């Protein structure tokens, strides 16, 4: 299998997006997002629901062109969708009337390949995602994990230089999710194309990404970018991993306004009432909100 060494860099420059609302101020979905992704890099975009991360991905893909700012991929501004930018959706979006291989083949309809080359590409990618033997299965006959694998194969078959993944494992059970994360990592290490993964799972973001971009909601903006300088395959029990996870989670607790006050500032010490509202340590459920 020849590894593709062609990948593109992505420059997101001051991108903002608003939705007009009926009888009110426009709703800002994204606010001045700027990010530079190197060619061949794996970047995770992490945020809770409603922070605009999926919207951002759609803008990069070219599915949506109504925004201010620029998105430049390998020197060209993004104006529309392109076969060079593959995308995997959260709902696998396989065509139910086609088999697995036919679905992957459907991606190649406009590819400049001969029929034989297309068939070979399909077979190659079926094997890549580990679904040999299931070429003739219809989507309703596949489990969620398998269908999502087909979707990933479909996203890769055009040998795009960029692969965008929108919460691809969100709809799967935890065990399958873990397995597919390993698969995706393996594929990335093999193909080395630029990948941007959008997720709400902190572990997933840290496990797969070289950098993790945390986003805050309303309006969507980048909170911070964390470098994950850990060797692969990463150990989820590695203390460094755990420390990074805590760091990232703290970001989310902070934005909920339930940050734990340092010991000296407790209002108990000010009997005549202070200007601050006493805050207890956030219960477990509050932490969950970060997800």
């Amino acid at each position, binding site marked *: 299998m020849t590894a593709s060494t062609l990948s593109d860099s992505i420059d997101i420059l001051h991108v903002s997006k608003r939705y007009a609302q009926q009888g009110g101020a426009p709703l800002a979905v994204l606010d001045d997002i700027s990010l530079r992704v190197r060619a061949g890099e794996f970047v995770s975009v992490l945020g809770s629901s409603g922070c605009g991360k999926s919207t951002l991905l759609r803008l990069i893909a070219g599915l949506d062109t109504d925004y201010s700012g620029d998105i430049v991929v390998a020197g060209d501004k993004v104006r529309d969708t392109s076969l060079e930018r593959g995308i995997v959706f959260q709902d696998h979006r396989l065509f*139910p009337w086609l088999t697995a291989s036919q679905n992957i083949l459907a991606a190649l*309809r406009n590819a400049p390949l001969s029929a034989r080359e297309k068939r070979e590409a399909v077979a190659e990618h079926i094997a890549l995602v580990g679904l040999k033997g299931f070429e003739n299965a219809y989507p309703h006959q596949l489990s969620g994990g398998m269908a999502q694998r087909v979707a990933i194969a479909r996203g890769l078959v055009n040998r795009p230089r960029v692969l965008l993944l929108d919460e691809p494992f969100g709809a799967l059970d935890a065990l399958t999710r873990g397995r597919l994360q390993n698969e995706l990592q393996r594929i990335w290490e093999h193909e080395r194309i630029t990948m941007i993964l959008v997720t709400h799972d902190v572990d997933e973001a840290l496990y797969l990404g070289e950098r993790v971009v945390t986003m805050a909601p309303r309006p969507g903006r980048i909170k911070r970018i964390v470098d994950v300088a850990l060797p692969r395959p990463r150990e989820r029990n590695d203390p460094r991993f755990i420390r990074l996870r805590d760091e990232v989670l703290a970001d989310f607790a902070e934005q909920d306004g339930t940050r734990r006050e340092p010991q000296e500032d407790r209002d108990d010490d000010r009997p005549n009432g202070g200007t601050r509202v006493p805050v207890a340590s956030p219960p477990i459920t509050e932490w969950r909100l970060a997800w």
Partner: protein
Amino acid sequence: MSLALFKRSSQSQQSADASCDCGAPASFRRAAQPRRPLLTRVDWRGAVLPVIAIVIWWAVSEAHVVKSGLLVSPAQVLATAWQQIESGALLKALSASLAREASGFVIGTLGGLLLGSALGFSRLATRMVGPSFDTFKQISLFAWIPLISVWFGLGDAAKVVFLSLAALLPVTAHTCDGIHAVPRAYIEVARAFRYSRWQLIRAVILPAALPSIFTGIYLALIYSWLATLGAEYLLVAGSGIGNTLIDGSEQFRMDLVLFGVIVVGVTGWALNALARAVERAIFARRFQSATR
């Protein structure tokens, strides 16, 4: 109605982890099951009522208890049936009716597909034509027959016009609905793969809308059959199974009427079965339980 598809085989832990979520399939063929003998397979209880009814009917007619020319015995009905079949009258009437129905159905379906597609692809057109179309649909179709008879006479032309109309309505509605209902998700996938407009229609919209379109055509078949009967009652020139029925009732021949009723029932059932078979052939593989 799921088909048994994979044979799950036990696999070693290693290969299971490495490749897929379940045991590798041996094949995707329909699983063969041994067939139970006919006697136990069919539920004979359903036949009890009809048998009893026929027995009672026969007994009452034999006993000459009821003095009415209307009470014909089953034997008489059978005799009439035989006579109709043998003389070719049945064939003539039925084929005339079916021929008319077929023409009306085909014309109406084709027109409906065209109109429905035009409406489906343009939301503006749907907005302009849709409400009027809906309103038109809700006026009992048969109310138009007298007008049609004025414009087209009482013969075959009028009947076919009416039948085409009966077929056109459901096909248009369902084609239009089917096209509107194609999920945006699929259209976005097509955009991601740079499908041209024509490719989009052929590869995404058409297959996605096909179940709905088929339902429309199925209804058109049923409705045009019902319309055939009605048309034959009201536009009495010509021959057909409906005419046979009306003649029978005018001549006070219950045996002929009963025979006609049975023929109508059987034909309706046959059309239904045909449509279901076609539907299974097209859809069984692709959609699990889309038809049920």
